[in-house]
């Protein structure tokens, strides 16, 4: 069986996923992805008649058992400095990040 996730497809996925992998890890992960796809291919053999709808949520989620949306009330967090202190890099209450690359849309 040929590999569906070739090195080229894999590298594209890694870029989209905003990940960086060393070569050894990349080899392991790509092999495992292809193995998982073999298991996933079992789904293709299942006869699915036209009227089988997709289930995105196992338990029927009806209005009768759903809470009403709560009121949109602004509640200030008591310790904003504590939240900011978790940021890896801050300056004057701003979170600092490297330059944001810009692309000019044509």
């Amino acid at each position, binding site marked *: *069986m040929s590999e569906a*996730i070739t090195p080229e*497809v*894999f590298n594209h*996925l*890694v870029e*989209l*996923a*905003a*990940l*960086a*992998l060393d070569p050894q*890890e990349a080899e*392991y*992960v790509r092999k*495992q*992805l292809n*193995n*998982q796809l*073999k*298991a*996933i*291919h*079992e*789904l*293709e053999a*299942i006869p*699915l008649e036209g009227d*089988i*709808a*997709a*289930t*995105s*949520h*196992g*338990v*029927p*989620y009806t209005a009768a*058992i*759903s*809470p009403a*949306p*709560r009121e949109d009330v602004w509640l200030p*967090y008591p*310790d904003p400095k*504590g*939240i900011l202190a*978790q*940021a*890896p*890099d801050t300056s004057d209450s701003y*979170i600092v*990040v*490297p*330059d*944001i*690359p810009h692309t000019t849309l044509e």
Partner: protein
Amino acid sequence: MELSDLSAHELALYLRQRRISAVEILDACLKRIEAVDGRPGTLDGGPPTPEDEQKVHAFITLTPERARAQAEAVDRKIAAGEDPGPLAGVPFTVKDIFCVEGTPSTAASRILANFRAPYTATPVARMEAAGAVMLGKVNLDEFTYGSSNESSAFQPSPRNPWKLDRVPGGSSGGSTASVAAGEAPLSIGTDTAGSIRQPAAFCGVVGMKPTYGRVSRYGLIAFASSLDCPGPVARNITDAALMMNAIAGADPHDSTAATVPVPDYLAALEQGVKGLRIGLSPDYFRITYPNLQNGTFETQPLPREIEESVRRAADLLKAMGAEIVEGVPMPNTRFGIPAYFVISRVEAASNLHRFDGVKYGYRTPEPMTDLRAMYRHSRGQGFGPQPKLRILMGMYVSAAQYSEQYYNRALRVRTLIRQDFDRAFDPQGPYRLNALLTPTTPTTAFKMAALYGDSVLMQYADQLTVPANHAGVPGVSLPAGLDGEGLPIGIQLLGPDYSEDVLLRIGRAYEEATETEPWRRIRPEAMASFDER
């Protein structure tokens, strides 16, 4: 018998009777932890030493000062004649996938190793409001992604208290190991494909996955949002019921937490099984998995001892008045894992995009020229291989050109799995079951390192538990004896939506029927050194 070996309901009772104090209970549990747990999991913890191999290693973070303050508050309430709550003084551990204000909340991942939660998850807050005393945060597979706990970035990973060269299961392996080893009578875990029930079976404890929406997910670091269910880990059914009383119910912070009224789970526990219809399905007595060499699928029967445990439980329940219904078809059980490989990955990829090294968590220490490079390197260094696998697979199968073939197809297969349960539990249908009785796992606990690295075989450890997650229905695993190697065997009860009370009632009846059996007196290996003192 030590205080740490008593059940939660016994401890709560003795405390109210003022026979013991909350601080005494806490000290007993801390003493047990000191004796059996060994060093906690840490980042870059290195390979296990020979000494590590004799310990349980359930914890990542022990919070004894916090626990002592809670225990003293309980004792003060009792001294003042106030109601200390139904779980007053009962220690519990928390899977480190829940946020608890002021504690490291790591998801067992480098990317969150330095994260301190700014708020507390609803199920944990409800335990504490009921008077329970949190001992600390226990280990898990990284972001819950695994069935053995070996993928944790915090090593040494937990070991099975029954045999320390075996895995505790996963991903709630720290929870089940801590309860089995007598470190705490209760723990709160999560179950996305079997992550409470599978390790409960491996560690010889009770583990319940409630109906999806029965317990709030607020404050749970999300894996697959349509599948994740917080639930109890306990040493017996009564304790699981006690814990369900505390944690179940609607929550204004989680719009998926259903407003269905919560029954008193203790009320009907002793009502027996007379008149209940309990099904057995041939589809739960075999396992189908892919042969990666030739691309075919192989079906094998389960080990004899596991099937016999289920059939014996059916006989015992029949003798107590239940009606056993044989031959219930659940034909889509085998598709649970392939569908899960797709659905859970898509949801995981979406959930994991928030970890980017900007606002909290790990950021690469290397200087980066731009934001995208910082994302890539922070995520590349912060995530272990299991999260990476899930992100990449999720992106692949949901890509525009593949989503019909994979994601949409998997969601329709999920419908078929739900229909299996609807047919079995339909009160007007041919089977009219109150519950389905199955094995929990295809094997007992496997050896450390036996499967880790093979992400396909590891996932198939969940084949008998994952259908309930797809369908959203509740399930409970309970101990049903030991195999020839002395390892716990788990049996599983699955029921219709919101039927946790019935499942617990059946489980309690089974406990009563087997109460005097010799295997219930056998203690896990990890306690041997403690018992010898």
